[in-house]
């Protein structure tokens, strides 16, 4: 077979692979077809990678032994690490794993671009302008997303304090670093355009500077952002990695990298905006930090609000639940942290066996990522038709006997309906419309927004002070005894 034919077939395989990515994402529209969608996407990946390997082996110059070793050993090592962590990770720790995979993806994109740049800088004919632009952008995006995702993952894992870390003059530092990266980029582009005469040593040094600035920028960008905003940040970095992959695709002239990278860039951008909107914040606002800094002042004012709060025992709460017609469970961050998803399912099944109608109200930002709560509950075998999204469930609170709030705070705060509160305008679950409300919570402490929750002082509300897991276990035991 002639070389042109082989390349045509390989190119077709790449295009089919890219089509599989698009169709796979489309099938993820529904839980019923989602798994097949992911498998189709994985099939496209196998096809694209396999075709590339065939192409390399069948090239006239062949694949050198050392290149084959690099490809095979690198794949086995990285693939093995990925397989092991993906299989063993607990579902509650999954957001940081996604962040880690995003980091290495961005790192790979940066390394591909760096390698290409070194080749261009040390070759006899200098790089043309457009190639330089794509290489430098790929290096920059890849470096930022590598270090940024590692910090974001570290915050979620608790390796780095989740609260915003504000360094005096930090913003000026961030801007200065961004300026260094920008100036370096301009210098390289002017060099490629022939305006500046740069030796290959100088261009490599400038590239090194851009990589360093990108890595530091990723750190200084994410550190001042609070842990609760990490989902938005990871989503943003995910989009950035996609863009970096597309840039690498431009450099090596590969269609599947361009299509796949652009797809991910678009999806990440949409997710980022959806997330930010659900929290009533703009992406720029989140990146600028602040707001979440309410952590430190929260403790001081918390005691004042505790006055008219009614405490309820597990036994009383169990009687309310067992004799209710309908119960809506509102799971939140506290449930995720306590890993109490199995306990909540157990309680729900017990209530259902007693003829109670049980539904779950899922706020768009419940948990740590959009849809994270759905995954946690699905892991605990909660049937997904019981999981209701905010707009669907809100009218049901009017007819609901008991709303059971487990570790959710700001997303239930009626203060969001009135102007003048930091969370004004944030979409909330209408928990206060229920006939009675039980809140399982460890203390009167504040949520992320650092403000009092009017729900807790509502006369209809009974507070069950406990860790989400222990509280649910106590409730389950009490319901069994009813």
């Amino acid at each position, binding site marked *: 077979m002639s070389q042109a034919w082989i390349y045509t077939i390989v190119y077709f395989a790449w295009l089919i692979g890219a089509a599989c990515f698009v169709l796979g994402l489309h099938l993820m529209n529904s839980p019923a077809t989602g798994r097949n969608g992911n498998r189709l996407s994985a099939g496209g990946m196998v096809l694209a*990678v396999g075709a590339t390997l065939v192409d390399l082996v069948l090239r006239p110059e062949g694949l050198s032994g050392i290149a084959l070793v690099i490809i095979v050993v690198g794949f086995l090592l990285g693939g093995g690490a990925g397989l092991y962590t993906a299989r063993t990770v607990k579902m509650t720790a999954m957001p940081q794993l996604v962040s880690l*995979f995003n980091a290495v993806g961005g790192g790979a994109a940066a390394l591909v671009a760096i390698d290409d740049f070194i080749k261009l800088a040390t070759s006899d004919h200098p790089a043309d302008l457009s190639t330089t632009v794509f290489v430098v952008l790929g290096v920059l995006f890849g470096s930022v997303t590598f270090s940024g995702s590692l910090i974001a993952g570290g915050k979620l894992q608790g390796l780095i304090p989740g609260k915003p870390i504000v360094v005096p003059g930090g913003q000026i530092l961030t801007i200065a670093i961004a300026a260094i990266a920008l100036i370096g980029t301009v210098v390289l582009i002017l060099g490629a355009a022939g305006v500046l005469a740069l030796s290959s040593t100088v261009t490599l040094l400038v590239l090194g500077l851009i990589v360093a600035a990108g890595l530091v920028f990723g750190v200084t960008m994410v550190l001042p952002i609070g842990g609760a905003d990490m989902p938005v940040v990871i989503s943003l970095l995910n989009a950035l990695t996609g863009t970096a*992959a597309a840039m690498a695709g431009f450099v090596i002239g590969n269609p599947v990298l361009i299509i796949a990278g652009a797809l991910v860039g678009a999806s990440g951008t949409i997710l980022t905006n959806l997330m930010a909107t659900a929290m009533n914040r703009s992406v720029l606002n989140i990146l600028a930090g602040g707001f979440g800094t309410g952590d430190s002042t929260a403790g001081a004012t918390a005691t004042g609000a505790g006055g008219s709060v009614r405490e309820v025992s597990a036994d009383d709460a169990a009687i309310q639940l067992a004799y209710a017609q309908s119960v809506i469970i509102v799971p939140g961050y506290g449930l995720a942290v306590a890993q109490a998803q199995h306990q909540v399912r157990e309680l729900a099944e017990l209530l259902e066996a007693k003829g109670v109608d049980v539904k779950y109200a899922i706020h768009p930002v419940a948990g740590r990522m959009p849809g994270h709560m759905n995954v946690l509950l699905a892991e605990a075998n909660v049937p997904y038709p019981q999981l209701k999204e905010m707009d669907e469930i809100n009218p049901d609170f009017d007819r609901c006997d008991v709303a059971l709030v487990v570790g959710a705070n700001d997303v239930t705060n009626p203060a969001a309906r009135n102007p003048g509160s930091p969370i004004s305008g944030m979409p909330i679950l209408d928990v206060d419309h229920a006939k009675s409300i039980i809140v399982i919570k460890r203390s009167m402490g504040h949520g992320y927004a650092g403000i009092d929750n009017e729900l807790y002082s509502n006369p209809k509300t009974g507070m069950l002070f406990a860790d989400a897991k222990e509280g649910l276990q106590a409730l389950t035991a009490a319901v069994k005894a009813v």
Partner: protein
Amino acid sequence: MSQELLNALALFVLAILVGFEVISKVPATLHTPLMSGANSIHGIVLVGAMLIAAEADNPVSYVLAFVAMTFGAMNVVGGYVVTDRMLQMFRKKTTPKPAPAAEQAEGKA
């Protein structure tokens, strides 16, 4: 700009539009699996790592290509497996009412 580059740019722009169109229809329930799924797709950069590995001819390139291969493979394999694990959980229970009985049956099996 070369014709090749212009073609690539057209591909890039169209792929972005397709991405917006396909993804904006996904319900919030599936956003986390979607983020993870999209995350595995950008592991396609593995193809780029293979290409630079094939052309590597000096120690610096060997190291860069090897690390890029490892990172890319981790992104791809781990990403798809963890996404599959998440989606696997979205199975429909057709009869949620007799749930405790069903659980006992599972326990026996």
